[in-house]
């Protein structure tokens, strides 16, 4: 009962690939936006804040539909990207990754922003008086100190991506081998007669992956926290 059919295996692999890509590509912009929201003073900051956190409160179907409008074949951005850069999102696994990235983005930004907010800025001043310019201060002081927040945000965003269903299925549909992620596959199996066993197998895998992610985040957080003296 524990061996997976090729179709199930494809769904698991696809989900992992989509989640890893979604998390890694959203990390640099997430860090940038978190810095901007925590430290920046500019007009329209609350609007940016609203846009970033919107996917957290909108129904995922709405987010997925907006993505379809924007990044579909004939969407505003989708047409431009396809014609000029050859990047196509619609009904591809890349689209699933985009949907997961957008859905996980608020969680990522929120975790990083909280840790930036809690930094003692006096430490950055101290680094400045010791001869470090702002870029070096960021790399040698700010970044190491917000590392726990970055890790927590990354894990959260990864877990969110593994579980993303509504926006993905709305945006890129449910194509086995291309856009059928783990949750979509489970949903599909529950809709067909005799699919219960497959659904349960995939559910066990989903629990295992999510649990490992949580444990990993605990472990990394502990090690990093000890390194920067938070817990000792």
């Amino acid at each position, binding site marked *: 009962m524990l061996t997976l059919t090729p179709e199930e295996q494809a769904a698991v692999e696809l989900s992992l690939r989509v989640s890893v890509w979604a998390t890694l590509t959203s990390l640099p912009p997430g860090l940038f936006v978190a810095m901007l929201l925590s430290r920046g003073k500019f007009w329209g900051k609350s609007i940016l804040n609203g846009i970033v956190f919107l996917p957290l409160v909108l129904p995922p179907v709405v987010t997925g539909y907006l993505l379809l409008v924007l990044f579909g074949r004939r969407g505003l951005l989708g047409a431009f990207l396809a014609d000029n850069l050859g990047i196509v999102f619609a009904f591809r696994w890349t689209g699933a990754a985009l949907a997961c990235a957008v859905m996980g983005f608020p969680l990522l930004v929120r975790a990083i922003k909280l840790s930036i907010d809690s930094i*003692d800025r*006096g*430490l950055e*001043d*101290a*680094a*400045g*008086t*010791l*001869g*470090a*310019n702002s870029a*070096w201060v960021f790399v*040698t*002081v700010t970044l*190491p*100190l917000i590392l726990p927040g970055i890790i927590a945000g990354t894990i959260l965003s990864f877990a969110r991506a593994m579980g993303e269903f509504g926006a993905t299925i709305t945006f890129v549909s449910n194509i086995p081998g291309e856009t059928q992620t783990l949750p979509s596959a489970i949903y599909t199996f529950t809709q067909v007669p005799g699919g219960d066993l497959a659904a349960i197998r995939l559910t066990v895998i989903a629990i295992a992956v999510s649990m490992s992610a949580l444990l990993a985040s605990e472990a990394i957080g502990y090690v990093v926290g000890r*390194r*920067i*003296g*938070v817990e*000792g």
Partner: protein
Amino acid sequence: MIEVDVQHRLGSFDLKAQFVSEGRVTALFGRSGSGKTSLVSIIGGLIHPNRARISLDGEVIVDTEHNVFVPMHRRRVGYVFQEGRLFPHLTVRQNLLYGWWFTPAAQRFGQFAQIIALLGIGHLLDRRPGSLSGGEKQRVAIGRALLAAPRLLLMDEPLASLDEARKAEILPYLERLYDETKVPIIYVSHSVPEVARLATTLVVMTEGRVVAIGPTADVMARLDVIPFSNPVEAGAVLEAEILKHDERFGLTALSLCEGQLWVPRLNGHVPGTKVRVHIRASDVMLSTRAPEGLSALNVLRGVVTELGPRCGPILDLRLDCGGQAILARLTQRSVESLKLAPGTPVYAVIKTVGFDRQTLGAASRQANGADTTAIPI
């Protein structure tokens, strides 16, 4: 030499300070809220002042009129913060080498080993800041600032967050700092004993203004400065020389004001060593006749030179004792019953127990003789 002329508004607080100092250890002295910390933050480059001109050994680092503002990382002004501000994610060694790493090789001075030895932090190198005591943290912070090869070292109340025992642990290191590194220091403090012990030049501040500046002994002997400092601790700072030790009673005789002063034994110092003595005004009694049958050991002859303003029932007086000034605090009633006025000859009675270990410090920064040493307190 440092020249400072600053005008800055912080909310409702108006800082307008100006001073020039060639002192080796310049103390910015005043009560909390007098603007000392804002002033050093401006010198260090942490605050962008409304209007200022600051130069260091002739090099202008801030001149708002000509749009000069050297950013803090290029200022080469070391900063020791009240709370240390060590990087928690780095070891002590990495903290110490942080500024060293950013300093071009040609500008570096002092050996790592030498500064470690000067501050006594060699045994801490592999630890993390989280496990250090307050005193150890401050010593590491001082070492870190020095290893960045500063032209000026700013110290913002480095002892304020420490208890008395930790203060006593650090003070001897601070005393040696200038002599061994030759980096001029601006030392912010509201503590009279600290300033009396460390500073060569005193800048007294109140409400964002400089009200007095000069050599420490001169400024401390001014009656008009007392209200701006800490009246309980106010008193004269004098230079004395060790005459002899009395083994039987565990005392040391100092020559001072053409007389002698007995203090608890100063261990490890040969006669001839110069020391600095801080005599609190409240530890001095006056008598118009030579006192007899008194338990106090120290009686100095002098002449009243100035009466300070009356403050409640008390007032402060300045005496001239063989060319050096001593302050005394008396009640208005005593002043009147003894008919004290400028010119009255008096005997100043100073209680031996009035000297705690804090008020005795080495005078090596002021003495020119080569044979002076610091006193471990």
